[in-house]
């Protein structure tokens, strides 16, 4: 299968294709051809370096959406043992856009909650491209309450373009379901570690996306609004998303700067999909350490501290 090429990678992809073509030529290598090949190789190496050295916010959005980027279910499978997936909200449905599971990280029993995108079209249709309906948020909330009852720390994986903007989702109380989760998470009497692994779209991300720690993958974004929606509001033109992206302060680095994230996990050059194993190892280590730090903190103190974190958010004048 050909590697999926992101928009900003196209110049590089074109060079690589040309190089491959040259190398495929079934002729004796003339000095001219050898020169051309080595010239191309040098050009590619240089472009490689500059292209990925400092991705722009919009380029990071593309990386965060890369179809081969590791997804919640990959983290669950690769990092955790003894997984028991739990289904349903016990009221309306089992929303596959949210995954909830009992799972064990390096001996620590946890509750994992994550947005779940598909790995192909068929899966994506079943999972609604990771955009939950209210029953998905309520499923997550049930998992939170279960975790609280039995003292299991909660690890969440954030990866959604947002809550699904559909008729039935609104009808069944999308706003209500999200709001309930926010109140629940804010006062949940068990540790909550949120990990931004891909997209962090607005309220649908936030509904499982904050707690005692916020850990961001380098190319994950987290935003009040997707750049496309922002562009369509302010420029009346969704295609101007690349211009909107840098205004929204939505990259992992932005979140660190704003004091909203606690830690950034650097990705391999080009993105997590280039070397998932190394990313899994980093996430396991960082989440494991956070679990270790939070375990044993008295619950009153834990929740008090989480409240203080929230209270401190905001910049204003008085």
């Amino acid at each position, binding site marked *: 299968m050909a590697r999926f090429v992101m928009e900003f990678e196209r110049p590089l992809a074109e060079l690589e294709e040309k190089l491959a073509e040259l190398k495929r030529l079934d002729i004796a290598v003339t000095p001219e051809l050898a020169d051309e090949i080595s010239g191309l190789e040098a050009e590619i190496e240089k472009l490689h370096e500059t292209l990925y050295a400092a991705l722009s916010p919009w380029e990071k959005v593309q990386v965060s959406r890369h179809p081969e980027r590791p997804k919640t279910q990959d983290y669950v499978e690769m990092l955790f043992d003894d997984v028991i997936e739990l289904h349903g909200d016990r009221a309306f449905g089992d929303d596959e856009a949210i995954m909830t599971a009992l799972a064990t990280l390096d001996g620590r029993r946890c509750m994992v909650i994550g947005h779940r995108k598909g790995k192909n079209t068929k899966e994506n249709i079943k999972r609604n491209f990771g955009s939950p309906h209210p029953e998905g948020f309520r499923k997550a909330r049930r998992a939170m309450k279960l975790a609280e009852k039995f003292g299991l720390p909660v690890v969440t994986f954030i990866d959604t373009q947002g809550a699904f903007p559909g008729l039935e989702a609104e009808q069944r109380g999308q706003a209500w379901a999200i709001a309930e989760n926010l109140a629940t998470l804010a006062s949940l009497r068990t540790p909550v570690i949120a990990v931004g692994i891909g997209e962090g779209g607005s309220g649908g991300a936030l509904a499982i996306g904050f707690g005692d720690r916020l850990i961001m993958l380098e190319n994950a974004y987290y935003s*009040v609004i997707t750049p496309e929606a922002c562009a369509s509001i302010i420029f009346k033109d969704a295609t101007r998303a690349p211009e909107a992206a840098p205004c*929204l302060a939505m990259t992992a680095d932005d979140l660190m700067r704003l004091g909203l994230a606690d830690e950034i996990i650097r990705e391999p050059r080009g993105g997590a999909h280039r070397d998932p194993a190394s990313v899994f190892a980093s996430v396991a280590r960082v989440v494991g350490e956070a679990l270790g730090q939070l375990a044993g903190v008295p619950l009153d103190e834990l929740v008090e501290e989480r409240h203080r974190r929230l209270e401190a958010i*905001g910049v204003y004048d008085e």
Partner: protein
Amino acid sequence: MPISDWFKAREGRKYTTTSADAPGDLPDGVWVKCPSCKHTLYQGDLDRVADVCLHCGHHFDIDAPRRIELLVDEGTFEETEAGLTSVDPLRFNAAKPYTESLAKAKAASGLPEAIVTGRALVGGHPVVLGVLDFRFIAGSMGSAVGEKIARAFRLAKREDRAVIMVTRSGGARMQEGMLSLMQMAKTAAEVGRLASAGLPYISVLANPTMGGVTASFAVLADVIFAEPGALVGFAGQRIIEQTIHQSLPKNFRTAEYFEEYGMLDAVVPRGELTTTIALTLDYLAGAGVPAAAEGAACRIVSAGGET
């Protein structure tokens, strides 16, 4: 302008007509045209009926000071945190600088921020009241609005007051990015803390209440009222239409629609809102139940008396 000055200024105010075809040859006083039934109405009449059309019941959008005037026991409102206003933490400048939007909003509304909060009495009950003002960047919630809401809840908790929030908002304020999004969590947390203290919280969803305001403190109230016809929801109307590729039902996401779908306690006409809230507070703020009498024995009572 502090809200108290506003109330003074208001006495001399005059509305101008909202449409060009208002009758020009009428005697003194100002006239407005109902956008729903197109009747022409005398502003003085509207003032007396809480800005509800006498002909069709259309609820005119009203601003925060007018809302406060309609809701609180006369003369009891004391504004809090009047000096708390937005800054521009992201130096946001897409299409238009945020600073410019802020300046325009302040000028247009005469308010320092998109929400007015304060202590008041409602039906004699001590409350903390918060009212969003749509004229101020569509009543959107940024850091300042979130902080004022958080402080309103904390004040209520400290002083054993109920909280009343009246919402009119387009949602989270884009121009402060993630700081705005996080106000959803921050305000939701404060609702939870008030709830733990057993204090009541009533919200009123006015037209429109959307996005991150709906999906946080607005719908976490113990009792949710909404005004007739108010548009309420999470996602934007256009985004939904683009996503599902079909036109939406006519009453989609009105207050009445959400009452039918179980999301609200009641749609309450503005004219009854103050008394309804006051009565609800009577219930939730504890009406003083008489002390227990002696234990009951099993017995049989007939319709005419005991047997």
